[in-house]
C-alpha cells in the first residue's frame, strides 16, 4: 500500500492562498521596498539634477542636517504631528461622546462632522487660506462686528503658520476620528454600563473610567491613521501656506519635493526621505510588532 502522488491540480489548489497573495506582495516588495532601497542608494550618491549612481557615503546626510530649512521642517513636523494627532483625537472623542447622547438628528449632524474627510487637502487648504486672509476673511468680518483686536491671520504670521496647518488638518480629520470612536462606543457591552450605573457611577465616571479605557485598540488605530496623514502632509502645506511665510511652515515632505525637483539636489532629497522613513519606522515597527505578535495562530 503505497501513497499515491499528490495530483498536480491539488498541489495548485493547496498553494492557491500563496499564489493569490504573491502578485500583491511582489508589487509591494517592488513598489515600496524596491523604491525605498533605490532611494536609500540615491541618498548616498552624488545625484544632483538627475539620479546618478556615484557613491559618496553619508555626505548628503551631513549636508542635510546643516540646512536651516531642514531643521525648521523637522521641528515643524514634530509640532504639527503632535498637536494634530492630540487635538484631532481629543475633539474626535469629544464629538463622539456628544453624539452618543441619543440626540435627535444624529445622522444629519454626523454627516456635517464627517464631510471634510471627503475633501482633498488642496481644497481644504485653499478654503482656509481665504478664511484666514486678514483682509478678505474672517478677521475683517469679526472686526466689522466691533471686536477690533480679533486676529485670525495665522497663515501670515511666521510663528502661527504651523498652527494654521494644525487647525486645517484637524478640521479635516476630526470627523473621521469621531466616526471611529462613535462606532467603538456603539459596540461597548451595554451590560457593563448598566452594572456601573447600578454601582452609582456618574455618566462622566462611566465614560472616563470604563468606556474610554476599553477603546484602546480604536485609540491606537486612530493614532496610526493620523500619524500617516501627518507624515504625508504635503498638499495642505502647498495650498494653505505655501510653506511660508518664508519657509516657516514647511514640512519634511515639502522639503523633499523642493530639493528633489526644484533645486537639483536629488541626493539631499533622497536623504531627507530616508530620514522621514526612519521616523515612520521608529513609530510603526514597535506598534506593528506588538499588534501582530498577539495574534499569532495557535
Amino acid at each position, binding site marked *: *500500500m503505497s*501513497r*499515491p502522488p*499528490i495530483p498536480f491540480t*491539488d498541489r495548485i*489548489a*493547496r498553494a492557491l492562498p500563496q499564489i493569490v497573495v504573491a502578485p500583491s506582495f511582489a508589487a509591494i516588495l517592488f513598489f515600496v521596498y524596491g523604491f525605498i532601497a533605490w532611494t536609500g542608494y540615491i541618498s548616498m550618491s552624488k545625484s544632483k539634477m538627475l539620479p546618478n549612481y556615484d557613491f559618496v557615503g553619508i555626505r548628503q546626510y551631513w549636508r542635510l542636517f546643516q540646512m536651516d530649512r531642514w531643521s525648521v521642517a523637522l521641528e515643524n513636523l514634530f509640532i504639527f504631528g503632535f498637536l494634530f494627532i492630540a487635538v484631532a483625537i481629543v475633539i474626535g472623542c469629544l464629538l463622539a461622546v456628544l453624539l452618543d447622547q441619543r440626540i435627535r438628528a444624529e445622522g444629519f449632524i454626523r454627516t456635517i462632522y464627517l464631510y471634510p474627510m471627503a475633501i482633498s487637502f488642496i481644497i481644504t487648504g485653499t478654503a482656509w487660506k481665504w478664511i484666514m486672509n486678514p483682509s478678505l476673511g474672517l478677521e475683517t468680518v469679526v472686526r466689522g462686528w466691533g471686536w477690533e483686536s480679533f486676529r485670525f491671520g495665522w497663515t501670515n504670521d511666521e510663528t502661527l503658520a504651523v498652527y494654521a496647518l494644525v487647525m486645517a488638518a484637524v478640521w479635516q480629520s476630526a470627523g473621521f476620528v469621531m466616526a471611529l470612536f462613535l462606532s467603538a462606543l456603539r459596540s461597548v457591552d451595554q451590560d457593563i454600563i448598566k452594572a456601573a450605573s447600578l454601582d452609582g457611577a456618574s455618566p462622566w465616571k462611566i465614560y472616563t473610567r470604563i468606556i474610554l479605557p476599553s477603546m484602546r485598540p480604536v485609540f491606537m488605530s486612530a493614532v496610526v491613521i493620523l500619524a500617516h496623514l501627518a507624515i504625508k502632509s504635503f498638499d495642505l502645506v502647498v495650498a494653505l501656506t505655501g510653506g511660508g511665510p518664508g519657509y516657516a511652515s514647511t514640512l519634511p515632505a515639502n522639503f523633499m519635493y523642493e530639493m528633489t525637483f526644484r533645486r537639483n539636489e536629488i541626493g539631499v532629497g533622497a536623504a531627507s526621505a530616508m530620514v522621514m522613513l526612519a521616523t515612520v519606522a521608529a513609530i510603526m515597527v514597535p506598534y506593528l510588532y506588538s499588534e501582530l505578535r498577539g495574534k499569532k495562530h495557535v
Partner: protein
Amino acid sequence: MASLTIKNAVKRYGNVEVLKGVDIDLEDGEFLVLLGASGCGKSTLLNMIAGLESVTEGEIMIGDRVINDVHPKDRDIAMVFQSYALYPNMSVGKNISFGLEMRGVPKKERDQAVQEVAKMLQMDHLLDRKPSQLSGGQRQRVAMGRALVRRPEVFLFDEPLSNLDAKLRLEMRTEIKRLHKRLNATMVYVTHDQIEALTLADRIAILKDGEVQQLGTPAEIYDRPVNMFVAGLVGSPPMNFIEATVVRTDSGYAAEVMVRAAGADQTVLLDLDAQAADVSDRVGRKIIVGLRPEAITQAGQKAGGDAQSFPSDIDVTEATGADTLCVLHWNGKEVMARVSSGYAQIIEGTMDFAVDMSRASLFDPETEKRLD
C-alpha cells in the same frame, strides 16, 4: 462506511511538537471520542483527519486509502463544528445543500436529500430561514443536517455540544447516539466533557500533551485508568487520591491512612490483598490509593466481603438527589464519599464508612502510573 487508521501521527509547528505520534485503529461503524483538556492536541488530530491540517509524519487511512495528501473534499468525511459554522448568508436549506452543490449533485436530488435530512432532524419548517433567525439548538440541528446529508464514510464532531445549555446538551447527546445507531457510521468526536465521552463512545482516547494516555472502552477507562491523569479526568466528582504508606499485615499488605474520626486522627489500614498489583517491594514507602467516591459508602450498604468499614468524621454533605456526597478528612485532605440518599439528613458528625478496596486503583507517586 469505512475503518479509520491513524499510524504514528505527528504534528509539528516549527519546533513545537503538538502531536507526538498517535496510533489509533478504528473499526467500521465505531464511535471514538477524543477526550482531553484544551491544548492537548485533540482538535489538531481531528483537523488532521479532516484534512484541515497537514500531517507532519505518519499516516492516516480511511479504509485502506492513505489520505495524508488527499484534499478534504475527497476524503468523504463530514464535520460538525463547535460554533456550527453555518454560512450566515445562506438559508438553512442552502446551508445543508451547499456540500452537495459543490459536488455537482443535480438540483432535484439535492432538494430531495435536504428534505429527507430535514425530516430526520425535525426541522423541515426551518428550511427558508437564515441562521441568525434560529435558536442555538436549531443551529446545532442544521449543522448536523449539513453533515448528514452527504452520507460520508466518517463523521467528525468538534465539541458540537459545548455551546448549548445543559438541557439541550442532554437532548442532543441522545440524538447523536441515536443517529450513530441508525446510520452505523464511523464517528470521531472531540470533547473535553468526560460525561459526553463516557455516554457516547464505543472507545475513548484520552490525550495529554500530544500523546494518547489511554485508548479503551468507557468501562476500561473508568475502572482501570492507566495513570493518575486519566483517573482524575474521568468521573465526577473525580477520583480521590490518597497518599498512603504500604505496611505488612498478617494477611499480606495494607495501606496506612490517617482518618479523622471523632475529632482525632485514627490510623486505618486499607487492605491491599484484593489488588492485582504486587506491592511487596514497596513496604514502608508511599503509594497513591485511588478511590472513586462510590467506592467509599456507608457501612452495611455493601454486601461484598471485601469491604472494610471504619468510622470517619463528615465535614460537609452535598445532596444530589440520587445520592449524597460526603466530604471526609483523610491524611489531612478532603476525600469524597458517595452514600445513598437515605443518609442525606446526616449533616455532620461521625459515621461508619465502608471502603471497597477491590475497586481501588494504585499509582506510583513518582511516575503517577498505575501499579498492576
